[in-house]
């Protein structure tokens, strides 16, 4: 039985006790998947599972579980998605007992941005891609009557190269085989490259990038960790952290708010950067923060439901902080 068949079977069995199960279905074209809300048994047939299923569905949870119409929610989760749920459980942001997780093992998701770039480099139009097949380490895209083949590693999401959690953790159900944990890189290549730049070039880079930000808040809205919803301080007038002025500095400030509020919580799902309509490389901020937390507190977010987030606790003598050193 394939992973998908197993998954469907598990959902079919659990569905009578759940108000809704969220998974993925084929989107508006062959290249995209879109979230699927399964309410009746007939909906289950539309479920798909492939590297196109990029969305972190945990984002819906904090809103859904507050709604009076929905009591019990089921969720299909990859490794990274399940970390979001673990982190939210730790922070008591979701009633975990009302959430049923259907875990899968994931061997990487497609980055549409990278694939589209490659296809355009090959002299084709992105709109002409009409079929995609995943064949082990290869991705084959039917475009313009021909077939273009790429190595999966060159078109997968960057987070998948460094992934240490390919299998969903702390789930009620698990479908298919476990995927071996085999990170291909220690550090994200983009961060590695960026860290080679001197400070002034970094500042100039962000000056250039942040002026493109249109502050659509897609990064915040898609973030499974952003739980404040209508009370986000970056859109509130009281306190007035960010002015309405469309200036580079204010855009930058908004990104700083997002990063700081994710310190010790970010699970590197990369949804913020994927959702960005102007492709700002904001994962550089998030990843740096994640590395800082790992180096200083030896803490990995969303790995253990019982752990205490590092900023909610302290030690009288910190192991890795030498604040008297200056």
């Amino acid at each position, binding site marked *: 039985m394939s992973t998908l068949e197993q998954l469907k079977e598990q959902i079919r069995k659990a569905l009578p006790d759940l108000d809704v199960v969220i998974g993925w279905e084929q989107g508006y074209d062959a290249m995209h998947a879109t979230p699927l809300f399964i309410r009746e048994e007939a909906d289950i047939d539309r479920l798909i599972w492939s590297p196109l299923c990029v969305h972190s569905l945990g984002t819906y949870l904090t809103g859904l579980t507050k709604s009076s119409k929905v009591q019990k929610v089921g969720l299909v989760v990859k490794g990274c998605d399940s970390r979001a749920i673990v982190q939210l459980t730790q922070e008591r942001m979701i009633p975990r007992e009302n959430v049923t997780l259907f875990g899968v093992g994931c061997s990487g998701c497609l980055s549409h941005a990278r694939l589209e770039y490659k296809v355009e480099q090959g002299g084709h139009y992105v709109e002409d891609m009409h079929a995609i097949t995943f064949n082990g380490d290869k991705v084959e895209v039917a475009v313009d009557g021909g077939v273009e083949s790429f190595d999966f590693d060159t078109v997968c999401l960057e987070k998948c190269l460094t992934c240490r959690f390919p299998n969903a953790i702390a789930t009620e159900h698990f479908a298919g085989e476990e995927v071996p944990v085999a990170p291909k890189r220690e550090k994200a290549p983009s961060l590695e490259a*960026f*860290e080679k730049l001197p*400070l*002034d*070039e*970094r*500042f*100039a*880079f*962000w*000056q250039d990038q*942040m*002026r*493109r*930000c*249109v502050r659509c808040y897609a990064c915040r809205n898609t973030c499974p960790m952003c739980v404040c919803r209508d009370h986000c301080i970056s859109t509130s007038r009281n306190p007035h*952290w960010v002015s309405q*002025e*469309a*200036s*580079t*500095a204010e*855009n*930058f*400030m908004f990104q*700083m*708010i997002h*990063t*700081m509020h994710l*310190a*010790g919580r970010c699970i590197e799902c990369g949804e913020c950067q994927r959702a960005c309509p102007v492709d700002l490389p904001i994962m*550089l*901020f998030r990843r*740096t*923060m994640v590395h*800082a*937390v790992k*180096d*200083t*507190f030896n803490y990995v977010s969303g790995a253990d439901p019982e752990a205490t987030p*590092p*900023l909610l606790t*302290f*030690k*009288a003598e*910190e192991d890795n*902080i030498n*604040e*008297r050193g*200056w």
Partner: protein
Amino acid sequence: MSARTGVLTEGRELRIVGFLCNWCSYGGADTAGVARFEQPTDLRIIRVPCSGRIDPLFIMRALVSGADGVLVSGCHPRDCHYAEGNYYARRRLELLKQFLPITGIDPQRFEYTWVSASEGARWQDVVTKFTNRIHDLGPAPRMQGGSGYDELCLKQIEEGVKQGAACPCHKERAL
């Protein structure tokens, strides 16, 4: 002016923001003042109830809004008036310090330290050292301009005006 501090009159003053906790460092600064220790005058002090009150975003906001340096000072660990505020602060501030380099803002522009209410001399030392350091770094670079789209529009309008001004009928009218 002073050979010891050396930064009082050289060049223009820079903007340094200091967040000091009410119970120790603010008292320490007061002690330094009462004892008439000479200090550089670039620092603007904001008094907060506890270093645990300081959100790292205060520091970011200050740096983004044009501060050239930010100094945070609280009670020594184990001496916090509220028992554990500075422990939480230490974790947050340390993360901020490690995060700053990726934004291109020099992490040297931000420092946190501990000064107790009796340490007037230490306060003088901290302020002088930090102010000197910021003066060595010079004014901080600032994020410039509005969204790229606005500027693009302005440029197009400017070009249009230029084209219009070059047109003979405009010239005649101007005459």
